[in-house]
């Protein structure tokens, strides 16, 4: 695990360089925060369609309880993920765009002498974005702004449906989830900044097993992404830094069969914070490559979660208007 960590760290440093691509390549590092979060794939330029193919390699390096103290665990155990994601966004009208995100994930878990690996479709996301603050003329302060909403479908396998001992076949949260948020961007010469607040609500569902019928109510979650970047010499390279803390309500478990929908467990609030560096390079006016490194062990709040480090690579192609 330590050698893999070192490799990720070195690759992260070497990769020092993405984003606008915070949106183009969001690394899904947090297995903990599977209830869908952060911004959907949005076109922020003057394009009519955009496609992105991304690969993210994640490595769980610590487990953190509600006391906020990370347990970096045994080097005999490892938990890694390899996610492929296809993102698409297309214009529906001059200021309205629709998007689709399809992830496929491979999890590999090694615990003591047991090794297990599975691959499966993750939770598919449909999204809509509206450019509420368009940049139709120059302003030294007015940002470009989008409102977005997204529906995450439980197309991946949830924990309760797992058929593997180490749950490597869990690729989804198991809930329909609705996200609303905003994205604000501003560029000044070679500098840019962005802000992405979002909240999401995951809908309750019923679980039936041998023990009876239960209702799982995951509730609300949210995150705020902030970051900045620089394009040295106004060239084709952009280097960026971003931070995105996120919180999720605990999953409340109740028993509808008992009087008053008896609450069996309130669940524990889950938190993690992505800190990342990114580099993106415009290969041509319509093609770009991105590299990102995300670390959840650097900043808080973190509680009741696994903490990961991950490396993301992506390729984007745009069709201009």
């Amino acid at each position, binding site marked *: 695990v330590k050698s893999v960590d070192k490799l990720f760290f070195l690759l992260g440093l070497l990769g020092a360089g993405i984003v606008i691509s915070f949106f183009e390549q969001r690394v899904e590092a947090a297995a903990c925060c599977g209830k869908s979060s952060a911004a959907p794939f949005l076109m922020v330029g003057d394009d009519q369609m955009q496609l992105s193919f991304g690969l993210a390699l994640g490595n769980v390096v610590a487990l953190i309880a509600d006391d906020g103290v990370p347990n970096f665990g045994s080097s005999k155990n490892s938990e890694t993920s390899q996610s492929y994601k296809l993102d698409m966004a297309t214009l529906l009208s001059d200021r309205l765009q629709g998007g689709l995100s399809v992830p496929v994930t491979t999890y590999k878990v090694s615990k003591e002498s047991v090794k297990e690996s599975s691959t499966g479709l993750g939770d598919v996301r449909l999204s809509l974005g509206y450019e509420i603050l368009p940049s*139709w*003329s*120059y*302003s030294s*302060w007015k940002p470009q702004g989008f409102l977005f909403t997204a529906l995450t479908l439980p197309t991946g396998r949830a924990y309760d449906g797992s058929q593997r001992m180490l749950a490597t076949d869990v690729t989804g949260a198991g809930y329909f989830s609705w996200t609303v948020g905003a994205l604000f961007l501003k560029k000044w010469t070679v500098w840019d900044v962005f802000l992405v607040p979002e909240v999401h609500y995951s809908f309750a569902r019923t679980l039936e097993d041998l023990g009876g019928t239960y209702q799982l109510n995951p509730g609300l979650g949210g995150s705020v992404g902030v970051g900045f970047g620089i394009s040295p010499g106004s060239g084709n390279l952009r280097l960026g830094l971003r931070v995105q803390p996120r919180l999720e309500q605990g999953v409340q478990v109740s028993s509808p069969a008992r009087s008053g929908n008896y609450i069996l467990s309130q669940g524990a609030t889950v938190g993690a914070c992505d800190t990342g560096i990114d580099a993106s390079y415009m290969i041509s006016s319509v093609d770009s490559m991105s590299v990102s490194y995300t670390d959840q062990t650097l900043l808080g709040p973190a509680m009741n979660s696994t903490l990961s480090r991950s490396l993301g690579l992506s390729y984007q192609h745009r069709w*201009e*208007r």
Partner: protein
Amino acid sequence: MIISKIRMNRQFKSLSNLLSLRETGSLSSKVSVILGLSLALSSKGFCFPKQIGGMDLVRGHSVQVDFKQARLATVVLFLSSRCPCSASHQITLEKLSKEFTPQGFRFVGVHSNADEEEGIAKEYFKNSGLTFPVIQDRKCGIADALGAFKTPHVFVLGSDGEVLFQGGVDNSHISNQANKHYLKDALALIAEGKKPSQKEVRVLGCEIRR
């Protein structure tokens, strides 16, 4: 480059009024001053130039364009010497100039890109085939006064410098792929004595480096 005869518009006057309130010192007036200042500064029409001028990159001599001299309106086109989107619209703009100049419009180009060398720009526009002047705006004074964002970015200005239409020439980066011709439609309506159906549209192209 000259930007002269700047007149205060209504927002500027209201800003002056708000600033005078500051002397009263009340909290509400201070809040009003801040709000007024924000509103006034947010307007790209804070001060309308009534005349622009500078070195004409096409002919190599100084030129001044007074908006009052155009019978109907002045069409100010922000262009670039290296933006493909700007280049793809030059033939269209020259055609529009030929079609609408006799109807009372005056066309003038402006080159405001800080990252494009003046010598290269001069050579480029000299050989561009454009028949209207292209003013060198080295310090982006004209671009800042009008709020020009990208190339090509078009402003159709009335005799007092008021914006009748602003935005893109059409709805495509590549002129011959466009299916909505915003500038042509706006000029046709103004020529008929009507207002453009859209006063502001999206501008596509390369960002003007300031």
